[in-house]
């Protein structure tokens, strides 16, 4: 890829990253949410890989790291859901934080927290899948 494409890809990937974070954080008041935001975040990495090639991220170590990110974030989500049992009423998935004023950023109880966690998880998962496919093909060629 030429220098122009590489430079533009760098700029746009930052833009995508910010937009993904916006999408994940504002999931409860606008379209988007954890899943779309997470895919956008992973899209930022994928764009960089496509523009710069494999060695840009030192991919061999990255798959381990993304795998850990993935399991930790979903583990926290599970524990949050389970913690509803201890918040007074013995109900799984109890949304025990106060609802707040609808439409503002800090509203919806636990929903934004779940959105952010799932955003991290989806970004890590899709990056893992993409990296694994690319690394596999790299190893098989040798």
């Amino acid at each position, binding site marked *: 890829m030429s220098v122009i494409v590489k430079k533009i890809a760098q700029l746009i990937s930052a833009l995508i990253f910010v937009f993904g974070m916006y999408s994940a954080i504002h999931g409860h008041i606008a379209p988007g949410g954890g899943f779309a935001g997470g895919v956008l975040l992973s899209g930022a990495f994928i764009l960089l890989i496509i523009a710069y090639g494999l060695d840009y991220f030192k991919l061999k170590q990255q798959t381990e790291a993304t*795998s*850990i990110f*993935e*399991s*930790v974030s*979903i*583990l926290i989500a*599970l*524990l949050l859901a*389970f913690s*509803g*049992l201890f918040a007074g*009423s*013995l*109900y*799984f*998935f*109890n*949304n025990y934080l106060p609802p707040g004023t609808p439409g503002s950023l800090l509203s919806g109880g636990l929903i934004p927290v779940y959105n952010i966690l799932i955003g991290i998880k989806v970004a890590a998962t899709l990056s893992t899948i993409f990296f694994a496919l690319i690394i596999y093909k790299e190893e098989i060629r040798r």
Partner: protein
Amino acid sequence: MDGWIIVLFFVIPLFGAFVMPVTYLFSSDSPKFITPVITFVLLILSLYSFVYQPEQIAYIIGGWKPVGDVPIAIYLVYDGLSGFMLVIINLIAFFSSVYAINYMEEYTGQKYFYVLMCLMIAGMNGVVLAGDLFNLFVFTEIAAKSSYALVAFGVKKDELEASFKYQVLGGMANLIILFGIAMIYWQTQTLNMADISYMLQNVENNIFPVFIQLILITGFGVKAALIPFHAWLPDAHSSAPSPISAMLSGVLIKTLGVYVIMRLFFNVFPVNESVSIVLIALGGLSMIIGVLLAVGAWDLKRMLAYSSISHVGYIIAGLGIGMIMLARGENQFVATLAFTGSLFHLANHAVFKGLLFLNAGAIEYAANTRDMKQMGGLAKFMPITLTSSFSASMSISGLPPFSGFFSKLIIILAAVIAGFYLIAGLAVVAGIITLAYFVKFQKYAFYNKPSVSSSIKEVPNLMRMSMISLAILCLLMSVLILPEIREVFLNPAVNTLMETTDYADKILGR
């Protein structure tokens, strides 16, 4: 028992699955010890709740009370049938996970194996507890996805191809089920299974229920490997690692296929004759074609996989006979008999097919072959495998003192009393052919002239332990026929099937 305990049935294995990649960083041996602990806890939990909780519990996720008459949140329902299935699932899961510690040592990437196994157990427990149609679909997906990956675990040509076939058929089945769920939502505007059964009672168009039931039989028939949809089973079950084969053949096809068919067609949809005739036809076909395919197989695990098709056929045929009696409203005793036979056979088949797959794995581990022609003379080297597989083989082929005899006998009796002489005849013939190919297996594997090298040793201790425990259990299963024990273990499940509208009435409080 408090309602929230049933949440633990899928929270614990999910927790285990998510925590293992992290603990693996500190100790690479940790996954293989975490998994048996988890399955042991689940086994204790399921036995505890089965013995102390004969009543139905409906647990509401999130604590949203019904508005008016309409349930709005996801329900988890624990009743006799769920408890029965939970005990079977966690029993086989525990022995498989203990067996896997030694068996999986020669594979790479053991971390992923244990993670996927925990996810599969979580998915199956969730399917059994789900009281909401879409939630059931999601849990089905978890169990199915992890089984796809586990089938391809030893990444050789056969495994990959089997897994691809399994995924194509399973994916199609899932989408057909999802389409059926969409149609049900269109008609009833609800997803709660109890509410659906209430809403489906007043449908004017009488083609709609038949269409939906056909779609759902197609979808779950693929999961249960009934005969026109069985193409994935022999490849997938024979190429997975042996503990996983035991799980797949022993409980997965029963949970995702047979259990869901029971739940949907007895407790959710109104019981009708046409569906029961389809079930009897599919069951009879599976019974006889399964054994005919199994006779020709020389690959040990493939033979066992074909035999699974035939035994699922027995269960489905028994269910169909009971259903037709319920639909006609005559002779409730035969219906009870047929359901008892089916559920008894389900439990039996889980135990002895699990044991046989573990034996096959032991033979493969020691002699490094799966072809029965290349075995022979193993009796001298592997006495424990010999005895345990002997008891399982006699039980599966239905020789009198063993448990398989009683369950088959009850199904055949029910068929004869109900007037389905063809099904009874097919069942007898299938039983005889089953005996034939298990005698073949015993002869070629253990007693023929030795054609393998003499350096074969008996398998390691943990594998031995789980095989012996399952063999003892297999012998003990025939006590289930005694009335007092049947009262505790089989009757709650049979009652769930017999009282078809009870399920919805109790949940909705009508």
